[in-house]
C-alpha cells in the first residue's frame, strides 16, 4: 500500500510539472478565469489557444505569480509546481519567477546593452563566478535565442536598437539565460517574420528537452507545429485540454471545433 503510493508519486513527479486546481481569477469585478483545472507535463510544450480576451495571458501569469503585481487582481485556487504550492506563504515569488521564466507578448528589452540584457538574470541570481563564465552564459543564451549571429559584433549596443523580431528573440534569450525550469511564452512570435518564427519554434522544440514550455498563441498552425498538448480557453473557461493532434483532428467540444475551423474567434 505504502509502496504503491510512492510509486504513484514518482510517476507524477516526472510526468506532471504543474497542477492547477479550481483556479479563479478576478480583476475587480471581472471574472477572468473560471474554475480551471489543468495538468501541465514536464518536458513538453503546452499550447494555450482561444479567442482574444478569454484569459490565456491571465492564466499564464498565474503560473509565475506575475498577477501579484496587479493591485486589483485576485487569484484563488491551488497551483502546484513539482508538488509545491506556489501560492503558499513560504514561497518567495521572486524565487519562483527565477524558476519560471516568462517571455512577454510585446518585446521589452531593457534600455541597456545587448550583453547587459542577457546578463541581467544571471547577475541578479549570481549564476556566474567570473566574467568569462558570464560571457559564456551570454553567448550560449544568445545562440539558443537564435540571434547570436546577428548581434555577436555589437553586444555593447543598446538592445532597444534592434528590430522588433530581434528584440523578441533577445527577450527569449534573456529568459533562457536564467536557466528556468518552466518557460512561459505569451504570444512570443506575434512580432516576428516567418523566418524568425521558424527559428523560435525550433528553439522551443529544443527547449523541450530540458524544460516544460507553455506557449500562448493565436496561430493554430503554430500550436499544431510546436506543441504536444493543447488547451482551449473560452470566456475564462478551460473548454478542452488534450493531445494536440486530438484537439485539431477530433475536438470533443463543439466550441473548440468552431474555433479551430475559424467560426468563432
Amino acid at each position: 500500500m505504502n509502496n504503491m503510493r510512492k510509486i504513484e508519486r514518482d510517476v507524477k513527479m516526472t510526468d506532471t510539472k504543474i497542477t492547477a486546481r479550481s483556479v479563479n481569477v478576478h480583476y475587480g469585478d471581472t471574472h477572468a478565469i473560471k474554475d480551471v483545472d489543468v495538468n501541465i507535463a514536464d518536458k513538453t510544450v503546452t499550447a494555450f489557444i482561444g479567442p482574444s480576451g478569454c484569459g490565456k495571458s491571465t492564466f499564464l501569469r498565474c503560473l509565475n505569480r506575475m498577477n501579484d503585481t496587479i493591485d486589483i487582481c485576485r487569484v484563488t485556487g491551488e497551483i502546484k509546481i513539482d508538488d509545491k504550492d506556489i501560492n503558499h506563504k513560504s514561497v518567495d515569488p521572486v524565487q519562483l519567477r527565477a524558476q519560471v521564466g516568462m517571455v512577454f507578448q510585446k518585446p521589452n528589452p531593457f534600455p541597456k546593452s545587448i550583453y547587459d540584457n542577457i546578463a541581467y538574470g544571471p547577475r541578479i541570481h549570481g549564476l556566474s563566478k567570473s566574467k568569462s563564465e558570464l560571457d559564456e552564459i551570454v553567448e550560449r543564451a544568445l545562440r539558443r535565442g537564435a540571434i547570436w549571429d546577428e548581434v555577436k559584433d555589437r553586444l555593447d549596443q543598446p538592445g532597444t536598437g534592434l528590430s522588433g523580431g530581434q528584440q523578441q528573440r533577445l527577450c527569449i534569450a534573456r529568459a533562457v539565460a536564467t536557466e528556468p525550469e518552466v518557460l512561459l511564452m505569451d504570444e512570443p512570435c506575434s512580432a516576428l517574420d516567418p523566418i524568425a518564427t521558424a527559428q523560435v519554434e525550433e528553439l522551443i522544440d529544443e527547449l523541450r528537452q530540458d524544460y516544460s514550455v507553455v506557449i500562448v498563441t493565436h496561430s493554430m498552425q503554430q500550436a499544431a507545429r510546436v506543441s504536444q498538448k493543447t488547451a482551449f480557453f473560452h470566456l475564462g473557461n478551460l473548454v478542452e485540454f488534450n493531445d494536440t493532434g486530438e484537439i485539431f483532428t477530433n475536438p470533443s467540444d463543439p466550441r473548440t471545433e468552431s474555433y479551430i475551423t475559424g467560426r468563432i474567434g
Partner: protein
Amino acid sequence: MTSYHGMFSALLILVPVLTFILLWIALQGPVVDRITMAGLPEGVLDGLDSGGVQLVLAEIKSVSRGQIFGTPEDWKIAAAGRYVILHDRADWWLFAAVTILSLALLAFARSRVAADFRARQGVEGIVSGLMIFCSTVAIFTTIGIIASLSYETWRFFERVPVAEFLFGLNWEPQIPLREDQIAAKGAFGWLPVILGTIVITVVALVVAVPVGLFSAIYLNEFAPKRLRSIVKPVLEILAGVPTVVYGFFAILVVAPAIRSFGQSIGLDVAPNTALAAGGVMGIMLIPFISSFADDALSAVPQAMRDGALGLGSTRGEMMTTVLFPAALPGIVGGVLLAVSRAIGETMIVVMAAGLIAKMTINPLDSVTTVTVQIVTLLIGDTSFDNPKTLAAFALGMMLFLVTLMINILALRIVRKYREAYD
C-alpha cells in the same frame, strides 16, 4: 458650417471694437489731462517746472473727486469742474463711437457674408492672426527685457572693465558720495558673489536631491496606495509655500538651531550661515525634485517592470538596475532645473544669507549671493547711472546667462529622454 458665418461676423466686429475701446481707455486720461491743463488761465503755470505742473494737476484731480484740502484758488476749482465734464463727455463719445463703429462693421460683415462666402477660412485667418499676435507679445516682451538688461550691463562695463568684473576677487560695491571722500573706490569682482551662490546651491542640493529622490522612489514603487495618496498632496503643499515663509523659517528656526548646536560643540558659527539658507532652500526644492523624479519613474513603461520582475528580480533590484537607470536622464534634467531655481532664488537668501561677499566655501560662514547683491544694490536711493546701481544689471545679466544655459541643457536632456520610449 453655417456657424462659421456667424462667428466670422462676430470676430469681424468684436476684434476692432475691443481694440478701439482699449485704446480709448488708455488714451482718455492723458488727453483729458492735457485739455484741462491747456484750458487754465494764462500765466498761472509760469515759473513752475514739470514737477510743479504735475502737482497742480494732481490738486485739480483731487478737487474734482471732492477731496478739498485748504482753500484752492478759484481757477483750480473751475478746472476741476471742466475736468469732470470732460470725463463725462468722453464716456458718451466713447459710447457713440463704439455704436457707430459696430454698425459700420456689421454692415461691412453683412456685405461680405454671402452663402458662398468661405467664412471658415476667414475665421481661421482672424483667429490665427490673434494667436500670432499673442505669441509675438510674449516674444517681444522677452526681447525687450533682454535688451534693456544688455543696455544697462553695457553701461556698467563702460565704467568698470569687463576683466575686473569677471575675474576680480573683491566685491565692495561702494562708491564715494563726495568727490573727496577717502572711502574705498569700490571693487566689482563678482567671483566671491557667485561663489556664495554656488555654496548655497550646493548645500540646497545636498539636502534636496537625496530626500526628493528617495521620496519619489518610495512613493512610486514601494508605498501603499493609501500612503501615496496622503504624501503626494503634502509634497504639493510644500511646493506651494511662499518662499518668504521659508525665509522666516530659516532665520527664526534653522539658523538659531545651527548656531546653538555649533556653539555647543565649540564651533564658531555665523548668525546667517550658508548652511541655514541653503538647507531651507533645499527643503523648498524637495517637492520640485521629487515630482520630477516621480514623473521620470512613472514614464518608464510597465513592460520594463514586468520584464525585470519576470526574470526574478526583487522590487529593489528592479528599481536600481532597470527603473532608475532608465529614468536617470529625466531625473538629471529635473535636478538641473532645480539648480537653476536655486541660483535664481531670492527671498530666502535675502532674509537668511549674509550681505558681505567672502571668498569662502565654508558653509558655516556667512556668504552672500548674486540675487541678494542685486536686491541690496537696487534698494538704495542712488541714481540709476552710477556703477553701484549698474552693477546690479551686470549681475542680473550673468545670472540670466547662467540659468539660461542650465535650462537649455536640462531641457535637452529631458527631451532626449522622452524620445527614448516612443
